[in-house]
């Protein structure tokens, strides 16, 4: 396939691997913080190709996995209301809430629609004027601008039956929190899609403050291996810096228009991350002038008390401290068809990726 196959070229991969083996003498732990990277690394079998000096960790890069259980409970409470339609990305419907899931509510008769973008949800609002449509906004800087544009469109079209339940988050606070918590990270494989929007400015602070390199990677094998090569080289020379190994998509200044849309619609709030707790100024909330579109403001619901999982080590897995296979529940009590923790639900979650593609 054009524009993809050249980045999956076996010869080129072997050449980069040879270079990596050639320069890598010191142990190094690299963390990716992007669900797309988690999946790609497992899908292409990259860990089986790397020298033993290099350890790859999966961080909190899956937005579904880091979302709070209360967010799901909130969505469920809305779904139970008459004449309310939940519009959501497919990944969220199987995430366990405290006592139910959107999938189960759907079987109980709740109107839950899987959509591919906020625009589908806006179309639903137009075609169902007697219903209230609530879009579940989830994701990092990659999907937040799309949601922001949707809100601007909804305002422009004066939709009164459309609102957003936001679980949008931004990535840098989590990258800092992990290091603050003492997780051994020698370099970040920085997220590709997030960086197309944000650019690389936000990583400078991390590199400066913690002396940890950040290299933005794409999602194809050669992209990932190139980023790994650059991080290993930085580490070998004690020269952490911010670099881009995904220059065909990412510019250091990012996407100005997308950033403006986010800035216009959202403001930062303290937010709860599974495994990391409350991180200051890490979540995105609609600004006051858009509060008419904020489901948490305009739809009254009773949300059930939040119950957390027992025995689940999602937190440690999201921090890269433990591997999915270290969890007592993994593969036995917690499987993709009966997930206990969020890491198992989303196809981009570390546990789901590990379960499906277990390296051999």
């Amino acid at each position, binding site marked *: 396939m054009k524009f993809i196959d050249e980045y999956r070229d*076996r010869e080129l991969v072997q050449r980069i691997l040879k270079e990596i083996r050639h320069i890598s003498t010191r142990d190094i732990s690299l963390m990716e913080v992007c669900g797309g990277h988690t999946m790609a690394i497992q899908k292409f079998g990259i860990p089986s190709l790397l020298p033993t000096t290099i350890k790859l960790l999966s961080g909190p890069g899956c937005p579904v996995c880091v979302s709070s259980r209360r967010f799901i409970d909130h969505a469920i409470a809305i779904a139970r209301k008459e004449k309310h339609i939940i519009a959501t990305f497919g990944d969220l419907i*199987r995430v366990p809430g405290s006592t139910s899931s959107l999938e*189960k509510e759907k079987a109980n008769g709740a109107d839950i629609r899987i959509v591919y973008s906020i625009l589908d949800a806006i179309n639903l609002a137009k075609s169902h004027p007697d219903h209230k449509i609530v879009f579940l906004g989830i994701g990092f800087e990659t999907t937040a601008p799309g949601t922001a544009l949707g809100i601007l469109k909804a305002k422009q079209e004066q939709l009164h039956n459309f609102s957003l339940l936001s679980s949008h988050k931004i990535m840098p606070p989590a990258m800092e929190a992990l290091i603050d918590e003492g997780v051994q990270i020698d370099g970040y494989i920085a997220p590709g899609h997030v960086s197309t929007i944000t650019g690389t400015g936000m990583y400078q602070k991390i590199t400066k403050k913690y002396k940890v390199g950040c290299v933005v990677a794409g999602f194809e094998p050669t992209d990932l291996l190139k980023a790994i090569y650059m991080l290993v080289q930085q580490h070998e020379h004690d020269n952490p810096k911010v670099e881009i190994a995904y220059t065909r998509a990412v510019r250091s200044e990012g996407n100005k228009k997308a950033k403006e849309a986010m800035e216009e619609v959202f403001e930062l709030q303290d937010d709860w991350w599974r495994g990391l707790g409350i991180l200051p100024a890490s979540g995105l909330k609609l600004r006051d002038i858009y509060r008419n579109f904020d489901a948490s403001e305009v739809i009254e619901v009773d949300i059930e008390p939040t119950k957390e999982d027992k025995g689940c080590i999602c937190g440690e897995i999201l921090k890269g401290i433990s591997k999915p296979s270290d969890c007592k529940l993994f593969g036995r009590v917690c499987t993709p068809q009966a997930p206990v923790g969020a890491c198992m639900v989303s196809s981009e979650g570390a546990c789901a990726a590990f379960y499906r593609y277990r390296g051999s």
Partner: protein
Amino acid sequence: MAKDKILLAHGSGGKITHELINNLFVKYFRNPFLEKQTDSAILPGYNEFLAFTTDGFVVDPIFFPGGDIGKLAVAGTVNDLAVSGAVPKYLSCSFIIEEGLLISDLEKIVASMAEEAAKADVPIVTGDTKVVNKSKCDKIFITTSGIGFLPDVHKKISTGPDIHPGDKIIINGSIADHGMAVLAARNDMELQAEILSDCASLNGLIRSVLDAGINIKFMRDATRGGLANVMAELSSGKSYGLHLDENKILVQENVRGICEILGFDPLYVANEGKVVMVTGEKDAEKALEIIKKHQHGRDAAIIGEATTEHPGKAWLTTGIGGKRIIDMLAGEQLPRIC
């Protein structure tokens, strides 16, 4: 639990479907024929064995590029018989029709069934029709059952007890066409891609291989859950591993494109005209030659082999040379594709 309800995922064909089948249907209907859980039940007949199978079809949309629910209902049941090594003989069909369906649409579907049945040379000999109130089913659901005759020499094909390391894995062409064709045909996707479903009866192709005296040790059609599910199921609990080479598995350009966009792994996407065969090393090239001459086998390839490595597992060498395990599909990848 009494309060648990059926979820869409229970119909995915993956692990959760298997749990439902084992914990409910097999538990209550228990008998030695059912317990083998082969595509067709293998039953004692007079001179030969009987193969007997049934399948319900609820695909949405009912017309899609490369086929329709009627063609699918015939080919699906014919294939379930043929992959067990049987010669499909007779089909039955049962229609559940939603009030309001255009009779012209029904006629198109029935004509398509007749055409596919004629191609497969398997007559539809009995049937039933029910109509339900508007919105009590979605347009039309079809169930077909089929009977075939199974010569004694082929009766192990559906379970594959004689597979050994070194045996080859063959497939008769590209994967993931059907699932992606149906998905692209759904209105809600707004994707402009003309992908043809591979929906086709394979009994002719299979017969030509068996008639050539080739010892097919195992055969299954790679429908829901795709090639991955067939491999994961077959290897489970065995003393050998099953290895696939990603570079040898054909995925059409446009199918790969949609899979990339939507994040589907083609290995797990449904096919409706693909059979996976396992043969001895010596038979493999000969089988391939025969399959390639057939119209549904032009792109056939040897895609892997049974190994001593990773016993009980199916595993893949990825396009770049990495290794990973192929597990069964867990939840639902795509509802209502057949």
